């Protein structure tokens, strides 16, 4: 009903002919910044209007495949198998960075815990089952950890957050890679599922001796405490917008024109290891000339002016090297 009303209203308020209307759909994680960008861009360029539905990465990919949207958005880079299902070529543009942090609730422990990669992956594999296990305790000297059973909590809904988390665990633990792997949802060896960041953080808050993972932006906005994670260089890092951009910069060195690079467990002294890009999926050939120019102009704006406003919404901005690569890829759209 609302949809019909909405349709009727848009039809009624039909913009003048010169207006370019772009439809996009996809990931929910970057939705706050995308809606800010699209609205800011519309203010600066009143003839371009971008309508974004945050229906999830999977839905965005499906709609782009079906040709019902002009471009899509995904938290997970499309691999070759997925790209093969399209009957046109896709160029993927990283837009912002997100990170995932471990959060926990242990009665009597108030400080920030440090987690090694091994500890985190063994907890989620169900091999480390008690909080005072030496794998956790050895990284946290001076913290009195209880001997209680760990209650593992993960996302129940498919999400880019789960993809980043499992991608990280796959990289640091070969057993995880062969047994569980990485995807927007996986076959979890142990644990309870909560729906959304709020579901996970709600379960963690309510369940004593539990551990879960949430997006950094969610933890920051809700003033939640979270743990430090050991990076590839052996340093324990607390996630922050700078340590996330740092990880991307380190990874960008290995990036040539293919931006589909995983930046979890990146090297570099100050990098936070559990983070990733989120992507816009743009068809390489756009036959409608006005649409093509509008999309290219928007991407150009997003990579320059747009990046300036991401930190106000707690997203980490793209490192300069990545922007440079994307600017080159932008010319490929024809």
């Amino acid at each position, binding site marked *: 009903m609302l949809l019909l009303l909405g349709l009727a209203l848009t039809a009624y308020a039909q913009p003048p002919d010169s207006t370019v209307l772009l439809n996009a759909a996809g990931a*929910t994680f970057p939705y706050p910044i995308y809606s800010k960008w699209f609205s800011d861009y519309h203010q600066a360029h009143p003839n371009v209007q971008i309508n974004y539905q945050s229906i999830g990465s*999977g839905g965005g990919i499906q709609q782009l495949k079906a040709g019902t949207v002009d471009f899509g958005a995904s938290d997970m880079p499309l691999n070759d198998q997925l790209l093969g299902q399209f009957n046109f070529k896709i160029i993927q543009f990283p837009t912002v960075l997100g990170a995932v942090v471990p959060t926990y609730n242990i009665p009597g422990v108030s400080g920030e815990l440090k987690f090694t990669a091994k500890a985190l992956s063994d907890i989620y594999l169900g091999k480390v089952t008690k909080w005072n296990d030496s794998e956790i305790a050895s990284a946290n000297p001076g913290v009195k950890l209880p001997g209680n059973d760990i209650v593992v909590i993960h996302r129940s809904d498919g999400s880019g957050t789960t993809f980043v988390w499992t991608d990280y665990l796959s990289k640091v633990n070969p057993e995880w890679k062969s047994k569980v792997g990485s995807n927007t949802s996986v076959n979890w060896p142990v644990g309870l599922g909560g729906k959304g960041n709020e579901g996970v953080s709600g379960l963690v808050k309510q*369940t004593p001796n539990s551990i879960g993972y949430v997006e950094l932006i969610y933890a920051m906005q809700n003033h939640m405490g979270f743990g430090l994670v050991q990076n590839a260089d052996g340093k324990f890092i607390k996630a922050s917008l700078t340590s996330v951009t740092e990880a991307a910069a380190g990874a960008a060195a290995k990036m040539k024109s293919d931006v589909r690079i995983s930046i979890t467990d990146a090297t570099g002294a100050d990098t936070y290891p559990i983070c990733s890009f989120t992507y816009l999926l743009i068809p390489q050939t756009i036959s409608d000339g006005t649409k093509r120019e509008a999309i290219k102009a928007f991407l150009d704006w997003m990579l320059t002016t747009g990046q300036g406003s991401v930190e106000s919404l707690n997203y980490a901005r793209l490192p300069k090297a990545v922007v440079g690569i994307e600017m080159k890829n932008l010319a490929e759209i024809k």
Partner: protein
Amino acid sequence: MSVDATAMERAPSPWTGRALLRRLAIGDEVAHLVTLIFAFTVILLTSLLVYQLFLNSAASRHAFGWHFWLSRTWDPVFEHFGAAPFIYGTLVTSAISLLIAVPLGLAAAVFLSELAPRSISDTISFLIDLLAAVPSVIFGLLGIFIVVPMMRTMIGPALKDTLGFLPLFQGPNYGVGFLTAGIVLAIMVVPYIISVSREVLLTVPRDQREAALALGATRWESTWKVVVPWARTGITGSVFLALARAVGETMAVTMVIGNDPKIATSLFAPGYTIAAVIANEFTEATGKLYLSSLIELGLVLFMITLILNGCARLLIIATERGGGHP
């Protein structure tokens, strides 16, 4: 003969000229046609739904066959999909909810229709109808903030102390799980049972009650042996309406069941239901087989509903044979 023929010519055929117009004006034919079309729309919608589910689940049906119903693995990474834990979770949570909601709802309906003064009955019924209109996410929140902590600190330990010898009440109690989901579902479906059962009980003719009382039955005997059996078809209907809601409920269940696709004997263990996994994973599912398996889960849910409804019909037929209400 000739007289007959002229009589027939004079008698207007129902489908010719003026007669048809007259009947149309009355509205008979129009009403017939319109309602017929509407009735067929329902059938058409249902068939289209099944057809679409069937069509879009082709990849998964071909890959797994009937094994899909029995397999316990749900692995989106390695693309092994099986519905067994979800079917189990759906049936167990629905059964728990009915076990709680049927006695509660029926007793409340008997009180409201037979014992309570009309003004009280109407007020309470109004509130119950309001309860039936509350969105399910509200019940989910109620579950998270009230039922889950209660389950962890009070209900769970109490059950373990008293019935802990049963495998149903053993194992770790996280607060979320089959039992919690069943309780939240019971709270959600009880208004349906009360509301429909009360209406049905109120339609039992007064003389049925008076006849029983005249035969020397007590009020309780007249209610329990005459009124309730008279209304049992309607009451069964209300129970199956509740069951249908419980089987298909998504939001409230996923918030309190723990979302772990495992088949566990313990009612404290976390589980998963069909509706919940579809809602959780559909938006972010990529890959043909994964999507197709989620759609086949929808088909499975539809078939379970069909089977349950068939059982309901059989039950109603069986109880009608036993006498009582015609």
